[in-house]
C-alpha cells in the first residue's frame, strides 16, 4: 500500500490531536494581536478543543468499542478503547487544569499569557501520543513534547525561584532523556527494532542476555520514572514544586503523570512475567513509598509537602503495576481517576489558603479553618481521599491497589512484594499524619495572621466541590466504575 495513502487513512485516528493542534495554533494566532490577546479568548479556545476532543473520544469509545486495537501510522500508534478512555481522562485532567488556572488566585500571570495555553495544549498532545505509543520513536518524541513545555511552564514566572526550579527541572529532565536515548540506541542495537509492542520485538528482546536487559531497561525506564517522579528519580520534585506556581504544579502533578503511568501499565503488560522488570519496578515502587511518605512527614512547606505526597502517590499508583491481571489494570485506572480529581482540589485549596495567608509554610495556615470553614472542611475530605479514608473513593482506590498486589503475591510469593505491601501499609499510616498536618493547623492552631485577603470565594468553592464530588460519589457506587473499567481496560 502506498505509504501516503496509509498516512492519509491514519489521520482519521488523530482527530483529537488535530483539534488540540488547531486550537494551539489558534491561540498562537490570537496572541499575536493586541485586540485578541485576552484571557477569555485563550481559555475558550482551549476549552472548546478539549470539549470537542472529549466528545469525539466519547463517541469513538462508544462506536469503536467493537473494533479494538487499530494500529496506524505505520505501527507507530495504537487506538483501542483503553487508550480512548485514557485520553478522555487526560482531557478531563486538562479541563481541570484549565479551570484551575482560570480561578487560581496566584495564577494571574499564568492565565493572562497565551503561551500558557499553548504549552498546556502541547503537553496534552504529548500525553495523547505517549499513551498511544507503539514505538520508541513516539515514546521519545512524546516525552519531549511533554517535557519541553513543562520546563518552560515551570520557568515562566521569571523570578528567582521559578527560574531556578526551571533550570533544575530541565537539567534533570534533559539528562534523563539523554540516558533514555542512549538506552534506546542500545535497544535498537540489540533488537534491531524499536517497535516495542510487536511480537517480533518481544521475542527478540526475550533472548537478550540478562545483563544487557538490565542495562537497557534501566536506561530506558529512567525517563519514565523521571516523569512519574519515582525513586530514585525523584529529587527534582520538591525543588521544582517549590519553585513553581500552583497552576503549573497542578499540571505537572496530574497530566504527564497520568499519561506516564498508563504507558508504564502498557509496558508492564508486555513485560509481564519478566522477572527482572517486575522486580526492578517493585523495588522502585517500594522505595518511592518509603521516601515519599516518610520524607513528607518532615515537611513544613505546603508545596514540598505536596511534592513528596506526589512521590508517595506515585508509589501507590505504581503498586497497581506490580499486580498482574485485569484487577491491577482496573485498580490503576480507578486510582488514577481518584487522583486526577483530588489532586487539583487539594492544590487549589492550598493555593487559596496561601493567597489568604501570604505564605506557603504550613504554619501560615494556622487558624484559617475558623475563617474559611467550608473550604477547610472540603480540604479535609480531599485529604481523606488522598489518605484513603472513607467516605471517599480514595478508600476503594487503596483497597484495589492493595488487593491487586496481594493477589499477585499469593501467586508468586515474592518477599519483595510483601515488603512493598508492608511499606505501603506503613506509608498509609504515615500519610495520615502528613496529610492531616494542614487541616490540623487550620483547625487546631490559633489564628495568627493579621492580614487576610479575601478572594473570589464562590467560584473557588464551586470548583473545589465539583472536583471532589465525583470522588465522594464514587465511594457510594464503586461497582459502577469498576464495571465500566472491566469492559474498557481489557484491551491494554
Amino acid at each position: 500500500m502506498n505509504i501516503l495513502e496509509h498516512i492519509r487513512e491514519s489521520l482519521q485516528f488523530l482527530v483529537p490531536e488535530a483539534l488540540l493542534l488547531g486550537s494551539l495554533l489558534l491561540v498562537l494566532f490570537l496572541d499575536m494581536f493586541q485586540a485578541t490577546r485576552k484571557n477569555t479568548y485563550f481559555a475558550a479556545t482551549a476549552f472548546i478543543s478539549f470539549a470537542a476532543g472529549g466528545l469525539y473520544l466519547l463517541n469513538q469509545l462508544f462506536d469503536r468499542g467493537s473494533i479494538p486495537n487499530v494500529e496506524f501510522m505505520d505501527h507507530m500508534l495504537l487506538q483501542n478503547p483503553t487508550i480512548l478512555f485514557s485520553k478522555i481522562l487526560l482531557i478531563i485532567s486538562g479541563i481541570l487544569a484549565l479551570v484551575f488556572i482560570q480561578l487560581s488566585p496566584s495564577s494571574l500571570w499564568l492565565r493572562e499569557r497565551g503561551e500558557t495555553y499553548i504549552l498546556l495544549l502541547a503537553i496534552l498532545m504529548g500525553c495523547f501520543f505517549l499513551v498511544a505509543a507503539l514505538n520508541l520513536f513516539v515514546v521519545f518524541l512524546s516525552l519531549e513534547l511533554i517535557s519541553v513545555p513543562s520546563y518552560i511552564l515551570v520557568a515562566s514566572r521569571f523570578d528567582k525561584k521559578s527560574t531556578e526550579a526551571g533550570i533544575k527541572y530541565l537539567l534533570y529532565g534533559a539528562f534523563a532523556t539523554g540516558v533514555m536515548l542512549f538506552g534506546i540506541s542500545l535497544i535498537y542495537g540489540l533488537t534491531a527494532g524499536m517497535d516495542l509492542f510487536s511480537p517480533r520485538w518481544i521475542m527478540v528482546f526475550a533472548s537478550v542476555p540478562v545483563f544487557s536487559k538490565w542495562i537497557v531497561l534501566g536506561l530506558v525506564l529512567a525517563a519514565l520514572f523521571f516523569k512519574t517522579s519515582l525513586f530514585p528519580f525523584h529529587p527534582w520534585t520538591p525543588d521544582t514544586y517549590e519553585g513553581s506556581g500552583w497552576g503549573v504544579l497542578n499540571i505537572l502533578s496530574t497530566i504527564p503523570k497520568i499519561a506516564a503511568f498508563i504507558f508504564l501499565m502498557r509496558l508492564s503488560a508486555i513485560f509481564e512475567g519478566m522477572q527482572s522488570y517486575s522486580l526492578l519496578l517493585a523495588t522502585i515502587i517500594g522505595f518511592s513509598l518509603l521516601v515519599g511518605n516518610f520524607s513528607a512527614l518532615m515537611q513544613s512547606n505546603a508545596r514540598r509537602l505536596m511534592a513528596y505526597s506526589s512521590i508517595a502517590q506515585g508509589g501507590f499508583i505504581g503498586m497497581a503495576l506490580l499486580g498482574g491481571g485485569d484487577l491491577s489494570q482496573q485498580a490503576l485506572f480507578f486510582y488514577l481517576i481518584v487522583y486526577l480529581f483530588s489532586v487539583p482540589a487539594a492544590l487549589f485549596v492550598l493555593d487559596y489558603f496561601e493567597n489568604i495567608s501570604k505564605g506557603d509554610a504550613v504554619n501560615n495556615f494556622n487558624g484559617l479553618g475558623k475563617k474559611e470553614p467550608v473550604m477547610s472542611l472540603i480540604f479535609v475530605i480531599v485529604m481523606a481521599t488522598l489518605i484513603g479514608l472513607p467516605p471517599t473513593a480514595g478508600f476503594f482506590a487503596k483497597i484495589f491497589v492493595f488487593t491487586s498486589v496481594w493477589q499477585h503475591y499469593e501467586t508468586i510469593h515474592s518477599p519483595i512484594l510483601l515488603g512493598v505491601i508492608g511499606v505501603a501499609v506503613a506509608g498509609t499510616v504515615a500519610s495520615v499524619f502528613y496529610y492531616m498536618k494542614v487541616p490540623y493547623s487550620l483547625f487546631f492552631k490559633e489564628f495568627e495572621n493579621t492580614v487576610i485577603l479575601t478572594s473570589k470565594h464562590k467560584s473557588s468553592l464551586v470548583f473545589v466541590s465539583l472536583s471532589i464530588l465525583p470522588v465522594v460519589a464514587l465511594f457510594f457506587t464503586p461497582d459502577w466504575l469498576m464495571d465500566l473499567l472491566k469492559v474498557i481496560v481489557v484491551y491494554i
Partner: protein
Amino acid sequence: MSGLIPHIEVPLIPADSISMLALTIFFMPIITFILLFFTGKHILASIRSWLATGVMGVMFVLSVYLHISIKGEHLSRWIWFEIGTIKFTTSMLLNNYSTTMMVIATFVSFMVHLYSVQYMKERRNHSKYFPYLALFVSSMLGIILSDNLLITFIFWELVGLASFLLIGFWYEKDTSAAAAKKAFLYNKFADLAFVIAIMILYAMYGTTEISILKELVNLSVTYQAVLAVPIFAGLAIWFATVGKSAQFPLYVWLPDAMAGPTPVSALLHAATMVAAGVFLLLKTSFLLIDWVPNLITIFGCVTALLAALQAIRTFDSKKVLAFSTVSQLGYMMMAVGVGADDAAFFHLATHAFFKACLFLSVGAVIHAMHHMQSHQFDHGQYKELDALDMRLMGGFRKKMPITFAAYSVSYAALIGLPFFSGFLSKDAILGALYDRAVVSGSWSWLIVAVAFTTVGLTAFYMTRQMILIFFGEFRLLKTDASYKKYFDHIVESEWLINIPLILLGAMSFWFFFSLNPLHAQTGWWMKDAFVSGTHHEFHIFIPIVASLFTLGAIAIAVQKYKTIDAFVDTRLTLTRVFANNYFIEKGITFLFVQPVFMISNMCMATDDFINRAIHAKAYFFIVVAQLADVFDRWVIDGLVHFVAGFIRYIGSFFRSYLKGNIQGYFYFTLIAFALMLLWLGWYL
C-alpha cells in the same frame, strides 16, 4: 458441678390480703419520702413533721393489727424482671417473726418521730430530716419483709444510704461529714461480703429466694462438706452483718456515727440499722454451718468485751451508749453463734426498746445542754461547748425527773436487773452459752466467763454514766460559772419528748415479755418460738450469778464515782487505747488505706508511663522520617564520599544533595539506581 444441686422451680405466688396490708405498710414511708423530699421546702415545718409522724403512727397501728391477725406464714412472690427464661423474683414473707420485728421497728420509729418533732424543731435543714427518716424506716421494713436475698441487699444498702444521709445530716460539721463517709464505707466493705454471698448462692442454687434456699440447702446437706460453698455463703453473710451490726473489727464506725442527730442515733441503734444485721443472720441461720457459728460466737464475745471496756473510759455521753450497743450486739451474735436464735431475737427486741429510751433520754439532756449553749449564743457569749461531754454534766436528776425516771428504768433493763426486760433476754443468752459450754467444753467456758464479765462491765459503765449525768453537781459550772443562770432555767423537756421516753421506758418492764419476771422461757415470747424451736433448760444459778456480777459492779462504780467532782483521768495509756478504738482504725489505715493510696499512686505512675510510651509511638513515625532523612543524608552521602575518593573534582559536590545542587541529585540518582540494580542482580 451445678448438676449436683437439684433444680427447684420457683413458683410465683400472688399476694393475699394480709400480704397486701404488709405491702401497704411498706409503701407508706416510701410515699412519705417522695412527697416530703420534693415538696419539703414548700410546706410548713410543723405540717411536715406531723405528717411524717402521723404516717408512722398509722404504720405502727397497722403493724400491730398485722401481728395480731397473722397466722402461719404468708409468702408471696412476684417476678421482678426476667432475662429470657431466667427469672429474677422478689418475694415477701410474713410470719410471726417478721411481724414482730415490724412492730418493734415501727414502734421505735414512731417514738423517735414524735421525739424528733420537738427535738428537730429548732435545728437547721429541717426539710430533709423527715424524708430521710422515712427512707430509713422503709428500707428497714424492706429488709424485714423481703424473702429474697437480692432484694434484701437492696434495702440493706438503702439503709446504708439513709444512715449516710442522717449521720451526715449536719454536713457543715466536718466530723459529721467524715463520720457519714466512714459509716458508709465500713458498711460498704462488709457489704462486699453480701454481694459475694449472693454470688455464691446464685451460682450454686440459681436463686436467691431465702425460703427456697432453705429447702435446697437442707436437700443438699450431704455434699455441703464437699463443696464447702454454703459454708462460705454463711461466712459471707455473717461478715456482711459484721459491718451493719457493728462487730469487731468493723464496729468503729458506730461510735463516730453519734455525730448525727440524737433521735437518729436512737433509731440507728435500736430498731433499724444495727438490728438489721442480727435480723438477717437469724433469717439465714440455716446457712451457718460447720465452723462458722463458732467463729461468730468468738467474734461476738470479743466485740462484747472490747466495746464494754471502751465504754468504761468514754466521756462522750452518746458514745458510751454506742459502745454499749456494740457490746449488746456482741451478745446477740454470741447467741446466734451457739444456735440460740430465739434468745438473740429476744435480746434484739428488748434492747431495741431500752436502748432507744436511753438514747432519747440522754438526748433530752443534751438538748438541754444545747439550749444553754444557744442561749449563750443569743447573748453574744458563744463558746465552744461539747454538749455531749459527761464530765460537764451532773445533777440533772432534779432538773429533769421524768427523763431521769425513763433513763433509770432502761438502765436497769440494760444492766439486767430482775423485773426488767434485759434481765430476761440476757439470761436466755447466758443460759444458751452455758448449755453450749457444757456440751462442747474447752474454750466455750472462756466465752461464758467473758460473757459474765461483760455483764459486770455493763453494769459498771452504765452506773458511771448515770452518776455522771444525773447525780452530783453540775460540773460545767466549775469550768465556767457563767452558765449558772442558764442551768437554773433548765426544766423538764416538753411533753413531746417525754411521751416517747415514758412509753419506751415502760417497755423495759418484764411483763411485756414474760409474766414470770425471772424466767423468760415460760414467757409467751420465747414460747412462740419465732425462729427456731430449740429450748434451753433453765438454770437458776445463771440469773443469780449474773445479778451478783451486776450488783457488785454497781457497788464498785458507785464507790468510785460518787464523790467525784471534777473528773480527772488516771491511766492515760489505757484511755488512749480505748479512745483510738484499740488502734483498729489506725490498723485499717495502715493495712488498707495507705496501701490503697500507694497503689493509686503507682497506678497513676503507670498511667504516666503508658502515656510516655504512647508519645513514643507518636514520635515513632517522626523518628522513622528522621531515619529516612539520615539515610538520605548520611548513608547515600557516605557512598558519595566513597566514590569521590576515585574521582577528582567531585569533592565540592559532596553535600550538594543537601544544598539543593542539581548535580548532587544526579549523584543520588546514579548511586541509588546503581545500588538498586546491583542488589537486584544479586537477589536474582
